[in-house]
């Protein structure tokens, strides 16, 4: 049982991590807790579902297009909502509130268009069977999610740490003004980030939709809660943190079901988070830089 639970934890943790990667990226660069990330994640699921259902598209093609669409939505949200707020020097909670508005709109429109019930990808979109080794089971999507989230983390980390683009993004994250003075196209990179993060969110939506057969307009909300916990646990804006935080939450939830009680699953997970924050006040990888006196 333990082995299977570890697999469950790994795959659930990877789901959280996958969602959190895009989420943390936006925060890391734009400094905005983008509460529409859950809605965009949901949108990704529906777009792919639509393409597979109506146009009989192959799953991978549909996923790419879904990423493109959600990426564009992210871009539009940035252009119409976040950019004007940046220009107006809005206080730091305001963009977050605006993204709540965006989330409400997208969710409500999705509900109007697609209906409120759970949908699923057609049977056979991906192999339903699970890989079985002895008594252990892992489905193809689960495996894909684990691999993709690790791969994405490595790619994102490499970009952030090793390239001039990554340095520029970190510069923007700390101070757009300083970044401008260095000749960095700050607005351009903001757009790029919003696009990339939303596309990642969309991809996560497709994979999660495949994995849990519960595509609904509201699927983003619980994921968003978990996502917030994950990126804060990992340290806001930190790529490794999103991954480790996601895995941590996955393991905390699964193991608390396995060894304590499912009644207290969320309380255990959030309680642990609470405790970790007390020990590490800015998450596992967050840096605290006290302003120099």
């Amino acid at each position: 049982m333990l082995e299977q639970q570890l697999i469950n934890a790994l795959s659930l943790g990877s789901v959280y991590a996958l969602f959190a990667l895009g989420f943390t990226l936006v925060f890391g660069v734009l400094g905005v807790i983008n509460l529409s990330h859950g809605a965009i994640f949901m949108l990704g699921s529906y777009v792919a579902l639509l393409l597979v259902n109506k146009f009989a598209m192959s799953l991978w093609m549909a996923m790419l297009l879904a990423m493109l669409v959600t990426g564009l939505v992210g871009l539009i949200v940035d252009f119409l909502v976040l950019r004007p707020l940046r220009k107006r020097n809005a206080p730091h909670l305001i963009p977050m509130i605006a993204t709540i508005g965006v989330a409400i709109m997208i969710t409500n429109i999705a509900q109007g268009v697609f209906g409120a019930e759970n949908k699923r990808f057609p049977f056979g979109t991906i192999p339903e069977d699970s890989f079985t080794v002895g008594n252990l089971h892992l489905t193809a999507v689960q495996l894909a999610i684990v691999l993709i989230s690790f791969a994405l983390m490595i790619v994102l980390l490499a970009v952030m740490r090793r390239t001039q683009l990554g340095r520029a993004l970190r510069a923007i994250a700390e101070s757009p003004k300083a970044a401008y003075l260095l000749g960095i196209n700050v607005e351009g990179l903001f757009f790029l980030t919003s696009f990339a993060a939303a596309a990642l969110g969309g991809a996560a939506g497709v994979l999660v939709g495949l994995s849990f057969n519960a595509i609904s307009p509201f699927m983003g909300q619980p994921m968003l809660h978990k996502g917030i916990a994950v990126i804060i646990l990992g340290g806001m804006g930190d790529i490794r943190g999103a991954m480790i935080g996601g895995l941590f939450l996955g393991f905390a939830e699964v193991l608390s079901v396995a060894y304590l009680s499912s009644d207290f699953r969320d309380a255990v997970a959030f309680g642990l988070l609470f405790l970790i924050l007390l020990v590490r006040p800015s998450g596992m990888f967050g840096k605290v830089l006290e302003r120099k006196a």
Partner: protein
Amino acid sequence: ADIKIGVAEALTGPAAKYGVAIKNGFTLAADELNAKGGINGNKIVLVVEDEQGKKEEAINVFKKLIFQDKVLMVFGPTLSNSAFAADPIANASKTVVFGTSNTADGITNMGPFTFRNSVMEADVLPVTTRAAVKQFGIKKVAVLYGNDDAFTKSGYDVFKAALEQQKIAVTDTETYAKGDVDFKAQLTKIKATNPDAIICSCLAEEAANIILQTRSLGMKQPFVGGNGFNSPKLFEIAKDGADNTLMGSPWSAENPAAANKKFMADYKAKFGGDPDQFAAQAFDAMYIVAEALSKVKLSGSLEKDRLALRDALPAVKFDGATGKFAFRRAAPQGGKEGGYDAQQDAIVNIAKGGKFILLK
């Protein structure tokens, strides 16, 4: 004058699949009644509101129907969870509230104006359990339920009592919360205890997912559930993964009675799809009310008419799409007068090839 009847059901949101079927049931019955000239010449007008399957909305909608639209009575809400929040308003304003799908225990304890024709879990689940034991030779079971919903929790309580009474061992009890999509941790734990069947007090969307994930863990156990399972949604998502699931309900598509045959045909003709338990119960409920109203002389004073309806209802006996029906007075609780439950027999169904059929 027209008779205004409020319908407060979940037409959007996660419970919409149930709510829409219920609304269809009412519409079908009301249209039929009106086509026959209404009740004592008065046409029935349905005032339909969406309570979204949420407590807060249910409260809002009830207030609007009762105070603003001044309906004679209210049907709904869809979920017991919302009923616990909204029904007290109806009772406080001395207006009949009639649930056609609320099956949790305690609904009718909220006051003497509470009625339902939905058979409560306590009447259905023991029967279902007994049938399951016989069908699968069950000795030990695992239980899984949603712990933050009144209906799923109440279903669990009843199952628990029934299992105790029938001396069936429970290997493990697990819970989940609304909005959860991953149940593998719980299921893995259940798997390790190797039960003969899984008892599941869940709503359809979660149930479908739970079934799929159970199968993907290589588990073959049959499921036993309550009326939450009774939705086409279950098969849309879980397909034949749901085969062998047992579910108790007062209604079956295979009931050969003429009333049911006609109901099913009319429903299909009007809405293009097959009806389900909830549509049938709603349909019957409308006739039950019509029956009561036919005995009432409407005075035009809302207050008096509401009282008159409440007094006329308990005596109604009816034989409709769900078979023979009568009201049963709920025992008073804590010195508070209760309302009326359904007196009706449960039928056990089994899932085969993507639908529920009668268990023979």
